[in-house]
């Protein structure tokens, strides 16, 4: 009896112990948060200013809301408005990738969890291996392959390669395995459900959380992708926004002292706006779904 009374008091004392230590911990946590915000703050604020203001005014000051519009209009002077092409390419490619990757991964995960097909273990292990190898490791052989089938500089190559989604397949395998009891499939089979109906009528309607998780990871993994499209696409009208941003570095004097003055009005605010177009969609998705990130990356290993 006595000990049960004692414990909460003791606990309270223990939690509050070492105020100095806690002060340093909290200060560091807040300091790190501020550091984390500075680069993004600079990027978001720079396009609101003129090139002179970017240098002259306080680095984290706001210029004018019209600055963004102005920078966008200037960006459109570059290469006959190719920036608009880049935006459209980025959006279209990513929609295609997210849809194909999510659909194929969800189906594959379902089959791996609900069936007794042969080579299931081989599939799972090769999926895990592909998921732990950085995708850029295969860029050179992928280029050779695409060259052989004549898809170099064709957006289809980037879309297809990026749609291979082993991590998504693994996530959906875990999801279906843990949320849908095998008995449900068994009784549905007895009632005459075909394999496709098992997926379309039972598994898919129960996978809202999974689909959003798959789409989230597919999007953040591909939106800012650089190396693979850089190797596969060489016409600037096929570029995505990240490639276009790199192209702007190369071909304007905005941040590259090696390029001489040009007639195109691309300076720091314009380059920064192009950077915002790449970073902002990811930032928004991250802020809205930070829980998904943790849930997905730890999927399968958390045992209740």
């Amino acid at each position, binding site marked *: 009896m006595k000990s049960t009374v004692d414990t909460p008091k003791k606990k309270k004392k*223990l939690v509050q112990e070492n105020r100095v*230590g*806690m002060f340093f*911990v*909290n200060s560091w*946590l807040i300091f790190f*948060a*501020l550091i*984390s*915000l*500075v*680069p*993004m*703050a*600079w990027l978001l604020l720079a396009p609101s200013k003129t090139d002179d203001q*970017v240098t002259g005014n306080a*680095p*984290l000051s706001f210029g004018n809301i019209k600055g963004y519009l102005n920078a966008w209009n200037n960006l459109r002077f570059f290469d006959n408005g190719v920036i608009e092409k880049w935006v459209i390419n980025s959006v279209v490619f990513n929609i295609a990738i997210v849809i194909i990757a999510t*659909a194929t991964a969800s*189906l594959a995960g379902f*089959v*791996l*969890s*609900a*069936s*007794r*097909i042969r080579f299931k273990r081989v*599939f799972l292990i090769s*999926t*895990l291996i*592909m998921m*732990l*190898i*950085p995708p850029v*490791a*295969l860029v*050179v*052989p992928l280029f*050779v*392959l695409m060259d052989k089938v004549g898809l170099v500089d064709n957006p289809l190559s980037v879309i297809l390669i990026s749609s*291979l989604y082993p991590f998504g397949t693994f996530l959906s395998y875990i999801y279906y395995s843990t949320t849908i*009891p*095998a*008995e449900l499939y068994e009784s549905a089979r007895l009632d005459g459900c075909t*394999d496709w109906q098992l*997926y379309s009528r039972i598994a898919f309607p129960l996978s809202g959380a999974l689909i959003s998780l798959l789409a989230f990871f597919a999007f953040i993994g591909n939106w800012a992708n650089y*190396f693979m499209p850089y190797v596969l696409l060489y016409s600037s009208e096929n570029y995505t926004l*990240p490639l276009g*941003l*790199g192209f702007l*570095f190369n071909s304007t004097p905005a941040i*590259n002292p090696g390029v001489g003055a040009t007639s195109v009005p691309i300076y*720091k605010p314009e380059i920064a706006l192009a*950077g915002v177009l790449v970073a*902002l969609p990811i930032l928004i998705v991250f*802020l809205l779904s*930070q829980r998904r990130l943790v849930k997905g*990356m*730890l999927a399968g*290993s958390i045992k209740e």
Partner: protein
Amino acid sequence: MILMLAPYAFLLVAFGVLPLFMAVAEVPGPSLTNADGGWDAFSIVVQDFRFPVAVKNVGGFMLYFIPMMMITVIAMALMLDVKTTKWGKYLRLAYIVPASISGAVAVLVWWAIFEPTISPIKSVLSFFGVDSARQIWQTENLTYLIAIMAFFAIAGNWILIQYGSLQNISSEIIEAARVDGCSAFQLAVRIKLPLIQKYVVYMAVLVFAGGLQIFVEPQLLNTGVYTGIASSWSFDQLSYELAFKAGDFGGASALSIILLIPSLIGALIVIFKTDMFDVKTNADKGADKELNV
């Protein structure tokens, strides 16, 4: 069932397995440096004068990057786990912000931060006596500059993930340790850290494999910002140059394979030596049952 697996299986074979075999098949092809072809492409690429330079650069970069990642991320996650005020939520949101600045955007933003004329940390730079970008952007400084870029691009994600793994520790263990008189520090180092060990291994493998393949940052700095500062600086840049500048696909493939080996070993360690991906699920149990029927 097979038909429903087919689209993924096609992608896996076409863009995962096939390229691996193609890389191997490509190696013995003749090229300028390996005129009569053959498997000595491996030794030729290792003897390329740029290879040891890349070893030095990427090695130096990893020497900063990996400890920086592992120590900061784990320490931050443990600290966040101690602090249980409502502020924690906003702090975690702040940590994730730099994760949206990667690749090309990271080059732009970190160029600005280390350019004293426009830098948001101008006063810090001048405190260290830096008043010209030339003092910073030198080839020999790239190991830590690129480590900083790569660190901020992924640290936030991992802080959140490891914080998530800490939430998974049962509160009974923590209570018991507290009652036994563990301080917050002892609790973190002796109880929590060993319990999240496998997530730490998982992270180490992914961070290592990713670091080895560093490409965008040095490549864009080299071609787009300070021309020549990081020419064939990393392995992937060398591989890119071999393939697309010299047309030496044999050498580039050989280099890709050499780079794949450590990643592959890491992947196999995580898969077979930790229980990270050991899924004990009701479907598995069900499948066993079905097999018995």
